[in-house]
């Protein structure tokens, strides 16, 4: 039987506020346990939450960035359950009335096609603390530094049909939250966590299969692997005549498998009800205007513009809009050099490879955008060849100054003087009568030998087109 995979994602992204969502405690990562938890975060008796306005502003920004309706009135609710790292015995979240309603994002698939993924809602909530099972013999330590950290939970429609689409969507959301400055998206630090709802159904059926939810995936690679494993597990189960059980599972990257965490029967009844300690959140037009006034051009719009303005393909345009910094770098190079295609090739080619190898972000690139543009201008005007350019690029990477300096000091200027090239060719023809004979006897392959010789003699600087043309003339003319 042919199976179809159905995936929906719930993404928890940490909002980039200075303080927690309901207290003034700082949100800095990596502090000593329980040094960033105040009385409110600890859930001491008599304390009360006060909403952080910045968290609301950032949620509004996200809503507008995905073309969603921002609710004029949203309501915080309590999600009640007992857990040692949940100090109040409830998590303050939003339930019936989330701040962000339906929206959509576009993903670009590997073949360049664009697919729209629906966002059901996004709501504000507080994070819980962390249970520490290591370093405590027979005990569990509780670190409440993370308790009360503002999260935006972004819930998608079950619109994805493969692990690749799910990863593309997660990457897209990751791109957006960083792009509009609402989250640092740091996955190692838990600022961007994904829960995947995965089910399979016979291809062509309309109803969904029973889903399993894989919790707390913190890398795109793990997301892909977890979904792949889960899809295979469900298909194997169904094909063997079994039944998928609705449950929560965990992905274990060491063993590359998902495991049962709790079944539906063990699930909590969260007893949601509106939090009487907090007033409904009212968002008016003025607040939306203030929150979105400095919203940058969004990645989808920029991708389209790159296609139109710079003549890039969907794939390149998507790649170069992966982050605002990268897109900005590209635009500088493209505009300064007036060679957008060359700029795109160099950035997604040699520069990306070098950055990747050195483990650097584009913002830390040793080759600045003006430097790269300067080099591309010299390719364009024929001062250097594409091949020599690789040598120039390496010098730029190693701090050799701007492209012109590198070209001059290392004598890399292309030889375009016809006379000089002719002299070279004449010398080589004279020195290799045998090969000349062979060429004239119709052995065309020998032509490459002459090109090679000329380039070698010129240390690669002779203009390859001129070399070609002149060689053909000379060898023919003999």
């Amino acid at each position: 039987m042919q199976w179809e995979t159905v995936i929906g994602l719930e993404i928890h992204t940490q909002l980039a506020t200075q303080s927690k969502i309901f207290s003034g405690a700082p949100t800095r990562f990596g502090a000593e346990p329980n040094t960033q938890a105040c009385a409110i975060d600890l859930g001491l008796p008599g304390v009360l939450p006060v909403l952080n306005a910045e968290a609301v502003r950032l949620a509004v920004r996200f809503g507008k960035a995905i073309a969603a309706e921002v609710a004029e009135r949203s309501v915080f609710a309590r999600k009640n359950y007992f857990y040692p790292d949940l100090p109040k015995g409830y998590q303050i979240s939003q339930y019936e009335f989330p701040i962000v309603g339906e929206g959509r994002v576009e993903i670009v698939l590997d073949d360049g096609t664009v697919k729209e993924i629906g966002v059901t809602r996004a709501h504000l909530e507080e994070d819980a603390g962390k249970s520490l099972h290591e370093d405590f013999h027979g005990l569990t330590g509780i670190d409440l530094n993370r308790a009360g950290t503002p999260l935006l939970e972004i819930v998608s429609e079950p619109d994805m049909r493969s692990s690749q689409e799910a990863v593309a969507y997660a990457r897209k959301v990751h791109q957006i939250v960083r792009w509009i400055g609402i989250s640092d998206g740091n996955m190692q630090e838990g600022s961007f966590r994904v829960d995947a709802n995965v089910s399979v159904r016979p291809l062509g059926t309309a109803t969904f299969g029973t889903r399993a939810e894989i919790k707390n995936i913190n890398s795109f690679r793990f997301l892909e692997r977890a979904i792949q494993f889960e899809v295979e597990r469900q298909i194997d189960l169904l094909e063997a005549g079994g039944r998928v059980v609705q449950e929560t599972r965990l992905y274990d990257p060491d063993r590359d498998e998902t495991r049962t965490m709790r079944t539906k029967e063990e699930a909590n009844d969260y007893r949601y009800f509106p939090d009487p300690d907090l007033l409904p959140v009212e968002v008016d037009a003025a607040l939306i205007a203030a929150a979105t006034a400095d919203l940058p051009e969004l990645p989808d719009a920029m991708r389209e513009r790159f296609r139109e303005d710079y003549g890039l393909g969907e794939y390149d345009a998507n790649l170069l809009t992966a982050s605002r910094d990268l897109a900005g770098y590209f635009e500088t190079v493209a505009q300064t050099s007036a060679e957008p295609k060359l700029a795109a090739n160099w950035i997604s080619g040699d520069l990306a490879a070098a950055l990747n190898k050195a483990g650097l972000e584009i913002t830390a690139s040793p080759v600045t955008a003006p430097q790269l543009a300067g080099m591309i201008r010299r390719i364009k005007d024929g001062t250097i060849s594409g091949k020599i350019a690789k040598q120039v690029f390496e010098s730029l990477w190693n701090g050799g100054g701007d492209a012109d300096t590198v070209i001059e000091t290392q004598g890399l200027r292309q030889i375009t003087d016809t006379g000089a090239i002719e002299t070279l060719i004449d010398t080589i023809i004279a020195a290799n009568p045998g090969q000349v004979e062979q060429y004239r006897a119709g052995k065309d392959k020998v032509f490459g030998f002459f090109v090679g010789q000329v380039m070698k003699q010129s240390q690669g600087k002779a203009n390859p087109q001129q070399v070609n043309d002149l060689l053909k003339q000379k060898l023919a003319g003999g």
Partner: protein
Amino acid sequence: MHEQNILALADDLRTRRYSSVELTRHYLERIARLNPDLNAFITVAAEPALAAAGRADAALAAGTAGPLTGIPIAHKDIFCTQGLRTSCGSRMLDNFIAPYDATVVERLAAAGAVVLGKTNMDEFAMGSSNETSWYGPVKNPWDHTRVPGGSSGGSAAAVAARLCAAATGTDTGGSIRQPAALCGITGIKPTYGRCSRWGMIAFASSLDQAGPMARSAADAALMLQAMAGFDPRDSTSIDTPVPDYTAGLNQDLAGLRIGLPKEYFGDGLDARTAASIDGAIREYERLGARVSEISLPNSPLSVPVYYVVAPAECSSNLARFDGVRYGHRCEAPRDLEDLYQRSRAEGFGPEVQRRIMIGTYVLSAGYYDAYYLKAQKIRHLIAEDFKRAFTQVDVIMGPSSPTTAFPIGAKRDDPVAMYLSDIYTIATNLAGLPGMSIPVAPVDGLPVGLQIIGNYFEEGRLLNVAHRLQEETHWHCAVPTGCA
């Protein structure tokens, strides 16, 4: 000294007839003598009180004193007090010392009041008789075999027995007004949002409100003046100016429109209590008020609605008491489940456990709409009743409690009978309105409370209405035998 009201005490302190330290010492001596029997205090804070009194004397000498400077008061043990145990009447918090002051505590301290200690209360403010306290029942100073009412029974008894000049209380369904009535003192539950809830241990967040318990409306006005006002730490606190309550006390009552809800005078109201209320109403007529009958048709639903809403909120509010971070923890827990179950089973008394279970039930999947949601809708209707009534009348009057103080133990095993003690007070909490109880003519030597309900933020009017009666009558001046 203990027979003086706050205004007289303040005068004496200012004129140096005696110092705040002397006054405080006098009250501490009274507590030492009378409290072992009454059990009104859970914690007496003699040393910090004397230290505060010393500071008050310095302020009095420096001429920077306010009306409450050096006045000895007590806080209900629901208000967090930095460095001083806050038990909330529960074994669960028997070992809890808060690292902060409640806003109300902070404000009264800033006004110069001296805190003698923390008063007894029903556990987590759940009760109408003070019998659910882990620290044992409080006795009614008027009759030691009877309850003082609850949940602010310790504060009411302490004020009635002259163990402090005034005290703080909290009122979720009548917990200031009912004990004030049963102990013969004056108590006011302000509009929801008038006093900050920061640092006040939550029972039912949407109903809880702090207020003063005092010997007279004039004293209550001074206390409320210090307690009320916007607090950015409480999102439900309301940012509206606090009027000068004392300045408004003497306004003439001619033309005051008093509404008597027929639902508050029906079956279940003790006939002699009703007669006592009638006597007070006649006094108001004599002062120029016009009395008419009104109807609050949904008020019979207020008890059932309350016993859905309040337990629902309390089941969630009390979830933090889990034995993990502070408070009672059971001995040698086997695992997490055991830690939770035994810590909570040992830490909470039966009434608290009953309400947590009711609340958990009404919020459960499949029952939420039928109970919680429906209760919220009726709550809205109850508020609408009042809104309509206040287009016709200025204040609403009736009994604070259907009976006088009942014997200790009489209703202990009948929770529904106990819940009906608050039948006249609960609706105002559900609507968020201010309500007050003042002493009127006693029945068989036991106090009776007249309840006065006003429109939102009309605490000033309630105090004025109460004060004018207290100017004309002496019911509020009666002192229990042995406490004079």
